[in-house]
Structure formats: C-alpha cells, structure tokens
C-alpha cells in the first residue's frame, strides 16, 4: 500500500477524521438532527459543485456558476409570477444555454475555459442586473407555495432540499457511470489527444459537460431563490469558492481524469464540517474565506496530475 494508492482514500478519511475531531470538541455535533441540518444547509452548494465536477473532470473549469445562479434567482422570481411551476424548466434551460455558450466559446473558439466562463459569467451578471433593475425582488408567498412548495419543508424529518440534492446526485451518477456521455467524458479526462485520435467527437461532449454545469448552477439558483423567497443579482455570491473547494477536496483534480460526482459528495460534506467546526472554534466568518482559499491551494497542489501539464503556466 504505497502513498499513491492511498491517495484515493484521502477524501473520506479526511471527512471521518474531521467529523470525529469536531465530535470530540462538541458531542452535540454528532446528534442525528444536527447532522441532517448540516447536510440540508450544504445542499444548494452541493448541487452547484455537482455540475462543476463534470467540467473539472474533463480538465476545464467553470467560473461562471456563481453568476449563472445569481441570474437565475432573479429570473426565477420574475418568471414565477407569469409561468408558475413552469418557471423551473425554463430556468434550467437558460442555465444550460449559458453553459452551452461557455462550452462553445472554450471548445470551438479555443478560448481557455477560465476566461471563457469568466466572460460568460460577466454576461450572466449583466442579464441578472438588467432583469432585476439592480434591486432585490420578492416572490409572492402564495404563488411560491403553490408552484414550488415541494422544494421547501421536510419529508419524514429530512429537509426537501437534501432529498432533491440526493436525487440529483443519483442522476449525475447515472450520467457518469451508465451513459455513453459519461464514458466519453472519462475518456476525455483520461487523455484528450487519445480521445480525439480514437474518433470521439470530443468538442461536442465537452460542450455538453459545460451545459450540464450550467443546468446544475441554475437548479442551485432556483432552490436558493425559493428558499429565500426572492432573488437578487448578488444573492449567490460567495458560492463559487466553496463549490470549487468541494470538488477539489473531494478528489477530482484540476487536471481531471479521476474522481467524479461521488467524490464531490464527500467534498461537499467536508466543506460543511469545516464550516461548522469554525463556528465551534469561534473563527469569524470573514476568516473562513481566507481558510477556504488556502484549502483550495492545498487541495490543488495535492491532487493535480503533473504529468499532464508539461509546463505549469
């Protein structure tokens, strides 16, 4: 058992160690209702991270997820008044469309993905600000409960968001493990030149990966908007860093090829436990950002596959 084969098991071992650590600090932490509340709180972030996983898995990155989610909180609030529950599929389609544009720009126009998604994120930000008139919007409580009541509340003691997140995890897992698309993305992540050489339509699959990320970001935005009963173009700010951290500490490296959505599940739980432990240790919320930034650096350094990047630019 050398270090390399051990690396695969780092994420869940970290999770167990962290949970025990916080559990010793405060035994109340390990109470079932507390753990459930913890998982419920992280659901929205987790859904966004799920989508980003697909993009990181193929060695690209999506920095637009937060802006897309911001935009969707506004659009969902606006559409709810006119479309009712039908606002949900429309929002998800819009998210997927933005992802598709990112994918097109980065794959067909050969703009590096971090710039492409940054630019598309800028466009999403503009749309959000335009649609909202630069102020916070509120959903009509009656309409919201009628159309999206199923998103909030609890079922059998479990927060509904958590159930939705779990369903989406299963969907993502099926896409990853049981579809041609999933297989193709694995091939691209493992080695893009080889995937091209074996006749795979790499560009098309990569674009779909970005579209999936956009759709998941939209779902995160939608749930967030329903939960807070409104939308604003800055509502989901602060999501991007922990979402990327969740993907990377879960064990999907920036270079892609290994890891996957199940890893992101563990990564999101790690993020949740870290956040909670900071509350117990009385770390001010502003310091959390510093800490997560450093965790991100550490996670990248530990997981990145240096044989894939000839020169590190």
């Amino acid at each position: 058992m050398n270090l390399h084969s051990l690396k695969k098991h780092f994420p869940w071992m970290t999770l167990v160690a962290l949970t025990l650590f916080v559990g010793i600090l405060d035994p109340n932490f390990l109470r079932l209702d507390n753990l459930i509340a913890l998982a419920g709180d992280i659901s929205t972030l987790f859904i966004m991270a799920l989508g980003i996983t697909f993009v990181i898995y193929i060695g690209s990155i999506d920095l637009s997820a937060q802006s897309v989610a911001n935009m969707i909180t506004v659009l969902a609030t606006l559409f709810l008044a006119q479309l009712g529950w039908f606002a949900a599929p429309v929002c998800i389609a819009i998210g997927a469309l933005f992802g598709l544009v990112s994918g097109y720009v980065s794959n067909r126009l050969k703009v590096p993905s971090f710039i492409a998604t940054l630019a598309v994120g800028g466009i999403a930000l503009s749309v959000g600000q335009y649609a909202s008139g630069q102020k916070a919007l509120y959903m009509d409580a009656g309409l919201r409960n009628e159309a999206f009541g199923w998103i909030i509340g609890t079922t059998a003691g479990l927060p509904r968001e958590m159930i939705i997140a779990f369903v989406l995890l299963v969907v993502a897992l099926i896409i990853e493990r049981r579809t041609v698309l999933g297989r193709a993305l694995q091939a691209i992540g493992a080695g893009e030149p080889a995937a091209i050489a074996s006749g795979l339509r790499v560009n098309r699959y990569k674009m779909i990966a970005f579209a999936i990320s956009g759709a998941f970001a939209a779902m995160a935005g939608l749930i967030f908007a329903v939960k807070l009963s409104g939308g604003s173009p800055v509502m989901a700010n602060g999501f991007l860093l922990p979402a990327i951290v969740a993907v990377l500490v879960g064990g999907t490296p920036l270079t892609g090829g290994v890891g996957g959505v199940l890893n992101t599940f563990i990564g999101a739980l790690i993020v949740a436990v870290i956040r909670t432990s900071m509350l117990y240790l009385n770390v001010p919320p502003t310091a959390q950002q510093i800490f997560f930034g450093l965790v991100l650096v550490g996670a990248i350094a530990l997981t990145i596959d240096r044989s894939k990047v000839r020169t590190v630019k």
Partner: protein
Amino acid sequence: MSNLASRGDLQRWAPLLVLVALIVFFTLVNPNFLSLKNFARISISATPPLMVAIGATFIIIMGSIDLSMEGSVAVCAVIFATLFTALGGTLGGWGWVALPACLIVGAICGLVTGTVHVGLRIPSFMASLSMGFVGIGLSLMMTGGDRIRVEDPLFRSLLTQRFLGFPLMVHVAFAVLLAAWFIQRKTTLGRNFYAVGGGEELAHASGLNVRRVRIAGFALAGVFYAFGALFAVAQLGIAETATGYNFMFVSITSIVVGGTALWGGSGGVWNTLVGVLIVNVINNGMIVMGLPRYVQDGVLGLLVIIAVVLSTDRKSLAFVK
C-alpha cells in the same frame, strides 16, 4: 509571405484602429463626447485600472495569468489607509511613509501568489484566484466590513489639482507607465518575461532561471496593483474591501483587447494603455448614450471573447483546456 505580414500588421494596429473608430463613433452620436472635460473624465476612470492592467500585462507576457488583483488591491488599499491614518493622516506629516509601505505590501502580495504558483507547481490562474480570495478575506477581516476614510487634502490633490486640464493622478500614472515601459524594454527582467512567454523550455535550456523570473513577475505586478489601489483610494477618498471590486475583469479584458495575447510572448504596456482606453471609452460612451452602467459587464464579456478569438492563431493549438 506579404499576406502573412499584412495579417501581422493588421493585428498589431487593430487595437489602435478600434480605439479611433470608437472615438469617432461616439462623437458622431453625441458631439459632447469629444471635449477636454470628457477626456479628463475618461482618463480619471481609466487610471486605477491602467495601473492594475500594466502589472498583469507582465504576467500575461510570461504566458501565466493573475486573477488575484481584487484581493491584492483591497489589501493594499486597506493597509495604506490604516497606516496613513495611524501616522497622522496627512502627507504633510509622517503619513507619506504609507505610500512606499503600500507598494511594499503590493510586492509581498505578488510574491506570495508567485511563490504559491511556482513553489507548489499549480497553474497560475487557480493559484492566483485562491490567493485573491484569501486577500479579500484578509481585507474584510482588517476592516470588519467598514470603510476607512482618507480625507487628507494633500493626498486627495491627486484628484483635485489639475495640470493642463488633467488631474495630477493622470500625470503620475503616465510616469508610472513610462517606468513600466522602461522595465519592459531596457531591463533584463523585462526581456526575460518575453523569453519565458515565448517558450519556457527554450528559456530554461538557455540557462534562464524560469522559476525566479516568474516569482519576480508576480511581485512586480503586485507593485503596480498597489499603485492602482493608491489611485483608487485617492479617487474615492475611501478604502474598503470593495475598492478591489471589478478590477480583475476590467484589467484582463483591457489587456486582451489591447492585443497582448493570452499565450504569452507578445504585446506590452502600450498595448495595455490602448486596451484600457478602449474599455473606458466604451464605458463612458455608453453612459453618454444613456445606457445603464450594468450593461458594461456583459459588453466586457463579449469583448474579451472576441479579442481572444481574433488574437488566436488557432492552427498552432493542439487543444485548449
């Protein structure tokens, strides 16, 4: 061959042509655009982003990228304002010490980002993005989310005093631009940036300490970010975390629009000047035309995509991540 040369010429002069075309266009739409008063306005709003973009230009010439400017600018601005206030709050007294201190803080921010990127061997966009988050967190922690006021009339004279119709800060910024040009053309470090960007392996093979050049590049960029922070504080009279807001997007867009290719090895600080002017002329022009401010982000997003696409020789790329 002549065809190739003309394509190169066109690429070289395209940003300047775009700038001229934009000025002509906005003047036709609204004649008030073409006035000394409006140009002074554009130059004031362009000054802080120009400083930040010049710093980032060196990094992009090396083929790396820096996304940490929002954090670095915020940290520089907050530390400057805190120190300035603590030292008496006026340039007439010991407050001037805060100016060089701010530049040193900028260099340290860059040094840390560069060391993380080179030392841990992680891609610069991610290293700098992470360190940017750390910087924003740091500045938030120092201010507790509050604003620090800097009202020293002597320091604010950078904005209030005018010379030849333009505020002092524009003249100072021009001097900094000339200094950056000197570094780019006449110093070993400046030439080394191009060597690293042109081909890292070749530069390494010819005996260049690439790692050291990279770290030095980030530290140098940090100094220019600090200039950007100083001018931003002088402009608003306020230092806060939000001082750094939007610098990343605007500066990267400006650099790319100015004609410095993301792949490294080409472009320079004059390109960046043109790029910053293009972005600010568009912003100003949109306001003159009566379009709301928030359209900017979307327009910048489109601009950066178009500029990267136009500047890329796509045949030479195997695949892009």
